[in-house]
């Protein structure tokens, strides 16, 4: 058991990779064998994510190391400095928290796909790409090496674009694929350029080592700017959100949910770079305000664009964009005040980080429901839908749960996290909080419109019955998580959110100290 615990971080990446490489071979044995294999891999990965989270949260979110290639990670050099020369994985509370989200979403996505993608071609390649995407996301979340982060970023980019363009017969999917791939590549190259700059200045690639070496010189600021631009692009924050609706809208429904987890991994990278890599070596107040303004813009643009959409998938995609804004807002408020570290700053961090989980679950559920009703109605146009509640009672209930939770209606989990964000934002600036709250109400209006258009109204001809159990079970599982987190937010905030927020907010010294000694 200890061996498994020790190796959990790397197995979390290696097992999905094994699955991805193996699926095409197993796929030759037939569909049943392939689905069993993919399900097994997804379950084992989720189990390891749980194991990792259990160990990390058991030590209250303190970071743990895994050195790839064995031996000492820090070799004493002639100058007396001990620099990690090998790639290390470093899992602290935040990484474990993100790994939990990813495990939950990819597991649901995989099991949903078994039923959703049953009558379509290319299933083997589909699952291979899904597992590659999973491995890439886990890698981004666990690595302690900046270049390694870039490599996993590119894995997610390529696997994601393969999935976005997977429905070859839709010409929009091809265009979205090209657009998203081009922008993802550009974002990756920005990150790589920044990694190169930092390597050129300090001769190392390890995050902890770089964090200890950074001085805040011009080159560092340029590198920070490049990293922020690249990762904000990949996370889909306004004004770099233009790819997000296409990507989420054109990808197959379960993959849209996984893409949300992918965006969140980029957001995690952004937070990791701001809090752990740069920390207080830069002017955090300025940067925090920039983040806050961007966050409000993201919220506002996302919600208003969602309001005018008639295409249900693009509508959900824009609401997903707006939710990225709430996470940025929470963490941005935290960053703004991270010199003085007042209480409400920590509350803001908790809210922002908790919202990452809630967003993944709610948007994930909404995308799944969106996929189901699109298939049932045979169209994505809200104006041509209607009356789905007659034949799909459970689906409509699930939609209500997802929509209310996302819009922040009590007693669902979205309310718990948004309330923390509002509370802290109000302390920083009441006007900002008002904008955020109003946007949330607007989002609720959007979903009421969708519900009215798609589910209410007279029964339409040619609509089948309720969705098969294979798709229903994953959706119900997500809804169950939403309700559980909504009913007992205090418990989950204590157990998993606070260690994650601690790791970012206070954990920089521990993170660096673990690798470089001392601290």
């Amino acid at each position: 058991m200890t061996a498994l615990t020790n190796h959990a971080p790397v197995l979390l990446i290696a097992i999905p990779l094994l699955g991805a490489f193996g699926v095409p071979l197993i796929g030759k044995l037939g569909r049943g064998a392939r689905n069993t294999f993919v399900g097994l891999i997804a379950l084992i990965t989720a189990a390891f994510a749980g194991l990792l989270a259990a160990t990390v949260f058991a030590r209250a979110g303190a970071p743990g190391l895994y050195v790839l290639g064995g031996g000492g990670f820090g070799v004493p050099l002639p100058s007396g400095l001990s620099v990690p020369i090998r790639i290390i994985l470093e899992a602290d509370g935040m990484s474990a928290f993100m790994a939990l989200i990813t495990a939950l979403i990819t597991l649901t996505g995989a099991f949903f796909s078994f039923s959703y993608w049953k009558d379509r071609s290319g299933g083997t390649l589909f699952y291979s790409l899904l597992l590659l995407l999973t491995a890439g996301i886990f890698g981004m979340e666990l690595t302690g090496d900046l270049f390694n982060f870039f490599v996993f970023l590119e894995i997610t980019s390529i696997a994601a674009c393969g999935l976005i363009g997977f429905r070859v017969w839709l010409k929009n999917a091809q265009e979205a694929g090209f657009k998203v791939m081009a922008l993802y590549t550009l974002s990756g190259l920005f990150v790589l350029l920044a990694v190169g700059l930092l390597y050129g200045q300090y001769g190392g690639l390890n995050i902890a080592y770089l964090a200890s070496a950074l001085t805040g010189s011009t080159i560092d600021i340029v590198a920070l700017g490049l990293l922020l631009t690249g990762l904000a692009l990949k996370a889909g924050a306004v004004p770099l959100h233009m790819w997000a609706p296409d990507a989420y809208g054109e990808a197959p429904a379960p993959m849209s949910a996984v893409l949300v987890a992918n965006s969140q991994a980029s957001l995690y990278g952004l937070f990791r770079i701001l809090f752990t890599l740069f920390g207080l070596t830069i002017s955090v107040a300025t940067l925090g305000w920039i983040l806050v303004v961007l966050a409000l813009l993201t919220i506002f643009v996302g919600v208003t664009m969602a309001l005018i959409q008639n295409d249900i998938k693009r509508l959900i995609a824009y609401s997903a964009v707006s939710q990225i804004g709430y996470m940025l807002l929470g963490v941005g408020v935290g960053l703004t005040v991270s010199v003085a570290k007042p209480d409400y700053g920590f509350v803001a961090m908790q809210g922002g980080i908790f919202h990452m989980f809630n967003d993944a679950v709610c948007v994930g559920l909404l995308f799944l429901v969106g996929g189901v009703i699109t298939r049932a109605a045979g169209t994505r146009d809200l104006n041509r839908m209607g009356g789905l509640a007659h034949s799909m009672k459970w689906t409509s209930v699930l939609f209500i749960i997802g929509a209310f939770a996302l819009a922040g209606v009590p007693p669902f989990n979205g309310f718990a996290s948004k309330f923390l964000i509002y509370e802290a934002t109000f302390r920083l600036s009441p006007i900002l909080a008002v904008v955020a709250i109003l946007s949330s109400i607007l989002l609720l209006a959007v979903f009421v419109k969708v519900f009215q258009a798609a589910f209410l109204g007279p029964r339409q001809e040619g609509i089948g019955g309720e969705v098969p159990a294979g798709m229903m079970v994953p959706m119900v599982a997500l809804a169950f998580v939403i309700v559980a987190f909504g009913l007992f937010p205090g418990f989950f905030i204590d157990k998993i959110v606070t260690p994650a927020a601690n790791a970012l907010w206070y954990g920089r010294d521990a993170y660096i100290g673990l690798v470089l000694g001392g601290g």
Partner: protein
Amino acid sequence: MNTGMSIIVRTITRLVYALALVFGFYVIMHGHLTPGGGFQGGAVVASAFALYLVAFGAAGIKGHLSHHLLQTLEEVGALAFLALGFVGVGTAFFYNLLANSGGVFGGSVPLGPNAGVFNAGGTLPLMNWAVGLKVMTGIAAVVIAMLVGARKEETE
């Protein structure tokens, strides 16, 4: 276009093809001694395939190479590479178990400039082979799939 290019190109290709293959495999096998390695050698071999493809056209490769076979080989290469990573998992993932162990590829090299010891490097040569197999088949599969796909469009 389906029949390939002119007689000059095809003749030259027949001459160069074998040379490129040999050179590619040489680069792969001596990755731990000389410049190059699995990626570079694999790319050389794949470019030989691509040259063959350009010279003889999509029809020319029919029956010789299919991207299904290449894809399977690529997965074998990828799995072998991952397995070599797992070999050292007793210590740590990617631990170089074989280096200086005296067994296969376990020889040690004299320090400083030397003529090169082939039987050294631990898992390095094995990884070079795995990656070489993966890269040559992967790139060839992409090129063939794109060529066949694009040609289909032209003929329709």
